[in-house]
């Protein structure tokens, strides 16, 4: 079994980091993982994304046309990637910044105002971790405790941001829990 998660949004929205935390958690759980970012000058003012691949066996091709899931932090990235997601995939829409829909019926779309939630927590930059919490809660792609552990590790050396992000993770989880089960 292999699944792929696409994280996408503006540069500066912490896209690469949430992907990395997820990859870390999957690795901790003994999976094979691969994290691949977009890179280079196209990042200037454009869409940044990263793909996290999680698998039970050695990961072959790092090139995936149709990822399993999507975390879309802004509108251009939803528009770009939603059409590519495999049927039944979880698609998280940051409804604070995205007013449109995924435009597909065969996906498990969850709309969460992650930016607004982060703002309420005191720092808009934690939106990526809110999204991560919500996404993992919905997709169950890794265990939540592992995820908590990995978020902790990520921020343990940035003391000012640790509790902010631990809270963000829980708030994301909560927001997802409140959605109707599909």
């Amino acid at each position, binding site marked *: 079994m292999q699944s792929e998660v696409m994280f996408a949004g503006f540069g500066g929205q912490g896209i690469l980091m949430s992907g990395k935390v997820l990859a870390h958690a999957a690795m901790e759980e003994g999976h094979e993982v691969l994290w691949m970012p977009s890179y280079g000058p196209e990042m200037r003012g454009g869409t940044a994304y990263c793909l996290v691949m999680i698998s039970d066996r050695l990961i072959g091709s790092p090139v995936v046309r149709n990822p399993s899931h999507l975390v879309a932090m802004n509108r251009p990235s939803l528009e770009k990637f939603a059409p590519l997601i495999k049927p039944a995939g979880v698609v998280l829409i940051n409804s604070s*910044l995205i007013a449109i829909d995924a435009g597909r019926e065969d996906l498990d779309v969850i709309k969460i105002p992650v930016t607004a939630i982060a703002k309420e927590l005191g720092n808009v930059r934690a939106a990526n971790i809110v999204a991560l919490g919500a996404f993992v809660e919905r997709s169950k792609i890794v265990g939540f405790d592992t995820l908590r552990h990995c978020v902790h590790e990520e921020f343990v050396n940035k003391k000012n941001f640790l509790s902010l992000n631990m809270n963000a993770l829980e708030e994301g989880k909560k927001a997802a829990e409140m959605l109707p089960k599909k």
Partner: protein
Amino acid sequence: MALKHIIDVDRCKGCGLCVTICPKNVLEISDKVNTKGYFPVYQARAEDCIFCTKCCIMCPDVAITIVEENKQSAA
């Protein structure tokens, strides 16, 4: 001939440089996203504008033009 201050919302990247530079404090950043995902500037106090072109000179994205009103009328 009256002058008109025009902000091309979709060229604006919301950098805020013009806001700081405006001698009459005319400009503010909007809270509505433009098509490119930026929060563009707008003339919050258009009536105070003295058409000094400082904002035009500062803007790295040529988002602001000032034209003579009648020339624009056709538009």
